[in-house]
């Protein structure tokens, strides 16, 4: 274990990295010049609309297209009758979206158009027409005869023997060997651990379906020139999107060009192709013209995906010294009818405990598909386990910060040392900056009110592993550098970050580096913006490509006029025996209005170790934004369903209630910078890590304020008033 004392943290300053730097494309963003997918206009372009299932589960007996086809201006219609293309990324055994081998064996395949349809919002037909009004009118002329089937919405209900079967194999989502088995972690013996404990605590928690709700509704523009497809789409991974499109369409990868210069937010599951991309490409092929598909906000909410809802049952044992002896988690994740991602729940690995058993079952339901959303398995899992541990500490009448410091592990999964360990320091600095001792109430609910204050905290570790990516850099006779990277910049500032890393490695100002991004025909493979790994992986490729180029310049000098020197790198760095982790601790104060049930976050302190910061300006914004998203998940956001009809009730901003300016307190961010000598200049993960801690910290603060544990997210006013009644 590499525990370091306070003095060993901090990094030596660099020339370009580590200074607050405006984004290289900032002017485009504030003048309206930045072109997003829906802004692309091509000559002769058609407009597409998608007809979606109004039923949560139904067999399509027939689809009558005669009236729609007769409408002037309609150019192409696709349904399951004339289109059987499989959307490979749409349902993957084990949720292993990036494995082609597993996609090949997946039993529960998802087509672009499925019959039966398995959730409200599933595509039934798509129309391309001369304008969007004609396309919308055509949808009203499509007559679909449905045989409505029984449906099930909640994951625990779906496991009951009498539940309707969504797949012939049953409702447990299949693992990567097509077996209906849960995701399981075991260490020691929970039964023994519970037997040896002085006290055992039990609790049930749940979280809701939370939609990504990125501001840019899904859109795609597809254009075929001969047998080559160009697709403009908001993707966080142009290389993976190209790969998926080629596989699904049965064409070679070099016959697909994916372009994404600007995109309006990611927040997960955009590092592959979407069914919107596939449908648009197929319509363009059928209509023999470029096609643009723009999803409405409602379609984006119900037709795409959000964070998987969870139910968690914990059993925790402690001995007489208040040390953990056993942690048991039985969890159920609602995946919708297709398994795009794992459905896992993180959190139990944070503790130093000899006996751990976590059994999480991903379950099919007839709700909208769930998948990766920023920190996929973390915010749900951490809300659960850290609410549980806060509850245990409260019942033991000890300070939860002290309980955490006593019981957390300093090793990755309590086994492997970290390259640098700063989590305890994050907690200590956060507690000091927040003034924890003054704000936290040793007697929960003791604030007389009517506005009751309380404080809560949570802490986390997030993966920051190394991996393969590529970069190309070249120099011309004038000493101007051009960097080619296959990033798209989902909002975290990747193109600027890549430029900064190149400038640092070259020893030139950022203005001397031209960054080319977002086009598979001009940029090399990049790992794709998911898992907070672009800076680490593509950034390392930039460092190594520059090293090569500098070697060439040292040997040959700058190229003669009209020529360039080019270097590329595809490093595959690995580490053994140690793990890279990003660390963080969040401290939250809330005010609960006991008359209205309203919760307001009044103070929020976030301390993170994300290694060396490449650009403190964008790093700060990432943590602030993620923390506020976490507040939204804690207090407001959920896709509610009508139990009788199986229809979603809150698909849109107004009812889903994402945070607004008024919900956003100042998030006080500070970083402990470290450099473990790995990744580009010691960079670790940032973007996803910031959302992990908000839900648990807010919930714990609400408990501290009112003295009643809020076990089900979101903590809406009705739940507060119910608890206080």
């Amino acid at each position, binding site marked *: 274990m590499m525990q370091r004392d306070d003095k060993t943290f901090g990094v030596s300053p660099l020339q370009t990295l580590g200074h607050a730097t405006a984004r290289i494309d900032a002017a485009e963003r504030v003048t309206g010049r930045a072109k997003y997918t829906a802004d692309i206009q091509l000559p002769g372009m058609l407009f597409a609309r998608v007809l979606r299932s109004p039923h949560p589960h139904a067999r399509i007996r027939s689809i009558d297209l005669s009236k729609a086809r007769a409408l002037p201006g309609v150019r192409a219609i696709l349904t399951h009758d004339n289109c059987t293309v499989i959307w490979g990324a749409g349902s993957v055994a084990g949720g292993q979206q990036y494995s082609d081998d597993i996609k090949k064996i997946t039993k529960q395949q998802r087509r672009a158009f499925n019959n039966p349809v398995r959730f409200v919002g599933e595509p039934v037909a798509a129309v391309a027409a001369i304008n969007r009004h004609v396309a919308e*009118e055509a949808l009203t002329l499509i007559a679909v005869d449905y045989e409505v089937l029984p449906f099930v919405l909640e994951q625990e209900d779906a496991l009951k023997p009498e539940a309707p079967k969504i797949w012939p194999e049953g409702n447990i989502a299949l693992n990567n060997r097509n077996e209906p088995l849960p995701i399981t972690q075991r260490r020691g013996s929970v039964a023994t651990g519970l037997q040896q404990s002085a006290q055992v605590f039990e609790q049930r928690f749940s979280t809701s379906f939370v939609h990504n709700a990125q501001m840019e509704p899904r859109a795609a523009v597809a254009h075929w020139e001969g047998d080559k497809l160009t697709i403009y789409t908001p993707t966080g991974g142009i290389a993976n999107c190209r790969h998926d499109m080629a596989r699904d369409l049965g064409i070679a990868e070099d016959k697909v060009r994916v372009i994404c210069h600007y995109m309006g937010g990611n927040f997960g599951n955009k590092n592959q192709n979407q069914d919107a991309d596939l449908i648009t490409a197929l319509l363009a092929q059928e209509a023999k013209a470029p096609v643009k598909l723009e999803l409405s906000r409602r379609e984006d909410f119900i037709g795409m995906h959000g964070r998987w809802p969870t139910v968690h049952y914990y059993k925790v044992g402690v001995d007489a010294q208040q040390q953990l002896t056993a942690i048991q988690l039985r969890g159920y994740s609602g995946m919708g009818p297709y398994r795009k991602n794992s459905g896992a729940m993180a959190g139990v690995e944070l503790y130093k405990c000899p006996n751990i058993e976590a059994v999480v079952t991903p379950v099919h339901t007839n709700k909208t598909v769930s998948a990766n959303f920023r920190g996929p398995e973390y915010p749900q899992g951490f809300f659960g386990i850290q609410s549980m541990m806060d509850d245990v500490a409260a019942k033991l009448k000890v300070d939860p910060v002290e309980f955490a410091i006593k019981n957390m592990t300093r090793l990755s999964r309590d086994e492997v040392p970290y390259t640098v360990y700063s989590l305890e320091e994050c907690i200590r600095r956060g507690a000091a900056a927040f003034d924890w001792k003054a704000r936290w109430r040793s007697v929960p609910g003791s604030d007389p009110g009517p506005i009751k204050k309380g404080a809560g905290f949570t802490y986390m570790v997030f993966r920051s592993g190394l991996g393969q990516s590529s970069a190309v850099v070249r120099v011309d006779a004038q000493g101007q550098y051009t960097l080619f990277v296959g990033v798209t910049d989902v909002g975290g500032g990747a193109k600027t970050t890549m430029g900064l890393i190149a400038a640092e490695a070259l020893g030139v100002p950022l203005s001397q580096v031209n960054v080319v991004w977002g086009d598979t025909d001009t940029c090399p493979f990049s790992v794709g913006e998911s898992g907070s790994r672009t800076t680490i992986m593509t950034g390392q490729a930039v460092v190594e490509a520059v090293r090569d180029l500098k070697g060439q310049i040292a040997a040959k000098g700058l190229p003669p006029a009209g020529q360039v020197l080019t270097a590329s790198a595809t490093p595959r760095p690995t580490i053994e025996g140690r793990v890279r982790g990003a660390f963080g601790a969040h401290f939250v104060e809330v005010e609960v209005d006991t008359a209205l049930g309203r919760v307001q976050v009044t103070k929020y302190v976030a301390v993170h170790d994300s290694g060396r910061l490449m650009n403190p300006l964008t790093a700060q914004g990432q943590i602030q934004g993620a923390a506020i998203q976490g507040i939204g998940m804690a207090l407001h956001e959920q896709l509610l369903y009508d139990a009788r009809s199986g229809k979603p009730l809150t698909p849109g901003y107004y009812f889903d209630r994402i945070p607004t300016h008024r919900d956003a307190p100042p998030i006080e961010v500070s970083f402990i910078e470290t450099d473990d000598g790995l990744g580009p200049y010691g960079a670790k993960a940032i973007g996803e890590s910031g959302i992990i801690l908000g839900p648990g910290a807010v919930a714990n603060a609400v408990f501290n304020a009112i003295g009643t544990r809020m076990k089900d997210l979101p903590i809406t006013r009705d739940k507060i008033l119910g608890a206080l009644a």
Partner: protein
Amino acid sequence: MTRSEHELSRRAFLEGTTVAVVAATTLNVDLGAQSPPTVAIAVESQVPRTTIRLTVNGVAERVEVEDRWTLVELLRDRLGLTGTKIGCDRGECGACTVLVDDKPAYACSQLAVWMDGREVTTVEGLARNGVLTPLQQAFIDHDAPQCGFCTSGQLMTATAFLKNTPKPTAADVRSALAGNLCRCASYNHYVDAVLAAAGTGPVRGTGGAQ
């Protein structure tokens, strides 16, 4: 569900409330005049249309619009001003905010024909001769946009707000911008930027991590 229930009802609602306005407007137009060809959308011949005169970013425009078009369709599809974004198309998110006669308006919730005789300013009309406004510059300096999709809306609302409230507090800014959602939740940086442009300074010292 047949065509998206919600949007249809919104459009039907807008059209229903504006019959009188359309009729009044039509009296003044020269139906015989040649209107320029549409840039992006093919036009069905039988669709009711109206020619309107309006000023967009200081330029007088005379355009034939379909009566069913919203202002954001006119701006994006007909005039090529794609800086104005559609986030929800039903008045919930503020991404399409423009100024109509200097007041912020959701362009998705205004019919194009209502713009006859009005002055519309979009994000493209803020900078003059390539010189950014202090607010645009503050947005850059404070890294207000993350993905940038809500940025034009935030800018337009904040532009009108600062004109009326030159020395705001952070709470004033939050209230004024409450109708402009940002899913990146870059709210802290947006507030910092507006305060900086007003010269009242950021609430927190940003421009760098603490």
